[in-house]
């Protein structure tokens, strides 16, 4: 009996691991920044070059950082949803505009609405590298102590928001919508 059970258990284990592998998405690379503080940065605001946004600008508040660009198709897809949640969630969204032109980015916000409390302008992508950005849109959930709680790559959808974000926000704020 034991003679046959060992290969059988091994086979089951290998099949299980391979079956799990079918569902893994190799394009989603886990971020080493989770539970670490937001990278130190200092960037001009997209809307007003004289305003400087830093990693401390929205500290003490649970907030989102959303990486976007006008050349990014997924960003256009999620933009309406961002407009919806910015008022409903009670948490501010800081935009991080990645490798973009200022005039086109401003036009985008004029045409599609501006869900952001402010947008940091990163045309050469240097700060985005510090965030480990590799494919916009990316959305980071930031705790009030300035550490990164969660990162989502790909457009935000209702499913992602309800499944991944709302439980975590409820946890961090004690309620949803959040009262910062």
């Amino acid at each position, binding site marked *: 009996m034991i003679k046959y059970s060992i290969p059988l258990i091994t086979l089951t284990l290998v099949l299980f691991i391979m079956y799990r592998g079918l569902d893994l998405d190799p394009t989603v690379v886990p971020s*080493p*920044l989770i539970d670490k503080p937001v990278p130190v940065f200092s960037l001009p605001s997209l809307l007003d070059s004289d305003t400087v946004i830093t990693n401390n600008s929205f500290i003490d508040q649970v907030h989102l950082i959303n990486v976007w660009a006008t050349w990014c198709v997924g960003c256009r897809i999620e933009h309406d949803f961002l407009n919806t949640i910015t008022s409903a969630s009670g948490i501010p969204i800081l935009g991080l505009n990645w490798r973009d032109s200022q005039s086109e980015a401003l036009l985008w916000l004029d045409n599609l609405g501006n869900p952001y409390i402010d947008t940091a302008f990163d045309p050469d992508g240097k700060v985005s590298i510090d965030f480990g950005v590799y494919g916009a849109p990316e959305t980071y959930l930031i705790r009030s102590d300035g550490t990164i709680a969660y990162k989502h790559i790909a457009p935000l959808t209702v499913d992602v928001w309800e499944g991944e974000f709302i439980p975590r926000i409820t946890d961090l704020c004690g309620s949803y919508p959040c009262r910062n």
Partner: protein
Amino acid sequence: MQKLIISIFFIFFIQTASTQPIAYSEQERVLFEQIRCLVCQNQSLADSQAPLAVDLKREISLLVNDGYDDNQIFQYLTDRYGDFVLYKPRFTAVTFLLWSGPFIMLLIAFFVFIRILRQSAKG
């Protein structure tokens, strides 16, 4: 006609001039070969012209100029993008199984083999 030919010549001249590759040092080229472009995952930074790859090459060049050695640059990248960014992941607690798994399997197979040999010798 002559003007046209001259202007066509200049168009080609400008074209080739603007696509001149940036001259990288030997250290940079060897580094770029070992780093994965996360946008197009089966290409190295050296092969990729994706915007992110261009940015990363620029930042790495700056670090090389600042005197960073290879390990410091790998650290810079894995701090931001994780071990996946390196084609040859380093030996850490996380990658322990990845590196030692095959040898552990070989060891297990060896002991199973010995056991079977002993059993068949008995029988």
